[in-house]
């Protein structure tokens, strides 16, 4: 049990996917203009990451390892994730347009999202069991969502403050994320500052 807790804590805080592993930056800067879209995005990421880590674990243990064709790991994982995302998007678009309005439009964004593939690879390389893999997926998604929400909150305030002309917009966002990652890395990790 305590192993699960350790995984959860480390995935959300200590080696948070976005701040220490640089995964999922494109959507972070693309979508974090306002908190509403950031919320939609993080929910979608958590949902897909859990499904992805579960299905890739199954494929890895029951198809790749017995046939020991582990070198096909990258191609099969990304194929699975792309199909999964497209399938979920179609289902949500058909069955609940309101949910699709708020959540679904971010789903296609997730196929090219490094965070999903990164989390899956990390959990496979970490040698997690099925349950640990899913917990890692959820907590990595929550970690990503948390950073996204913090960022969107900050960026909304940044809009109002007057910033140097050339640093407007994304460069300033980078610097804020830099400060954020100092907090995360040094507060939880042990950064020899």
């Amino acid at each position: 049990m305590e192993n699960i807790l350790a995984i959860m804590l480390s995935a959300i805080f200590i080696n948070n996917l976005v701040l220490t592993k640089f995964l999922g930056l494109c959507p972070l800067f693309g979508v974090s203009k306002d908190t509403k879209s950031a919320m939609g995005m993080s929910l979608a990421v958590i949902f897909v990451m859990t499904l992805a880590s579960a299905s890739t674990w199954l494929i890895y243990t029951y198809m790749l390892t017995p046939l020991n064709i582990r070198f096909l790991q990258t191609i099969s994982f990304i194929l699975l994730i792309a199909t999964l995302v497209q399938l979920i998007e179609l289902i949500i678009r058909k069955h609940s347009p309101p949910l699709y309005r708020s959540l679904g439009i971010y789903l296609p964004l997730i196929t090219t999202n490094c965070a999903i593939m990164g989390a899956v690879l990390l959990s496979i390389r970490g040698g997690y069991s099925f349950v640990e893999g899913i917990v890692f997926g959820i907590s990595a998604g929550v970690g990503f969502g948390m950073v996204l929400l913090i960022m969107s909150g900050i960026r909304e305030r940044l809009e109002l403050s007057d910033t140097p002309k050339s640093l407007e917009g994304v460069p300033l966002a980078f610097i804020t994320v830099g400060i954020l990652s100092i907090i995360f890395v040094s507060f939880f990790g042990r950064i020899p500052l």
Partner: protein
Amino acid sequence: MTDGLIIDSIIALSALGLICSAVLVWAAKKFAVMTDPRVEKVLEVLPGTNCGACGLPSCYEYAEQAVGGKAAAGLCVLGGEEAAEKMGNILGVSIGEMGRRVALLQCNGGIRCDDKFQYDGVKSCRAAALVRGSGKACIYGCMGYGDCMRACPLGAISIDKDGLPVVDEQVCVGCDLCVDVCPKGILTVISRDKKTHVLCSSHDKGKYVKSICEVGCIGCNICIKACPSEAITIKDNLAVIDSELCTDCGICVEKCPMKCIKSKGG
């Protein structure tokens, strides 16, 4: 050569590919949703990487908003000009030469409007509007802090020396992003072929307007009497030109004592 390994890998992955494509084809058929055909066509042109650079979370969303007229055609960074051109043709809004719609500022005050108090809060229209305005005596007029300038994705708006936003008609595609941003609501998108406009939105009494602004509309009715096609009416102390009736003859422009009715060149 462990040929067994090669066969296994081919069969395994082909099976996976088979299942994935079969599921997707089946799902595409089963969950088909009727959408505006133009959205599909626009989606064809867009890169489909949903990178979010246009500020919208996904290409599908951007295509929908562009077709619905809520988003400008040229916003796709990754697609560059070719995507913008093609989108323009599909949506009938052309980017390069004159589009059918362009933005217009209905205020000509700027430095010609006196200040009532000194405001040194955040230099943004949205923030100033929260307080009470930018210290200008006229509460309807433009504060000139350039929210519209920042909101315009194509950089068509710039603030001139009089502290008023100027719309560059060559660049503007009438996407009305600036209209949503302006807290005073004095930016409107009108069709390009209408020339004569009242550059004021103040509903104050004429006497007050005269005392605070050199170019405000004082509701003196001279233009109404002068207009041959009765296109002008006074609504709540402000002259309003009815674009259907107006023939751009320009008589009201000369007659207006305050010079706040302007006819655009070109």
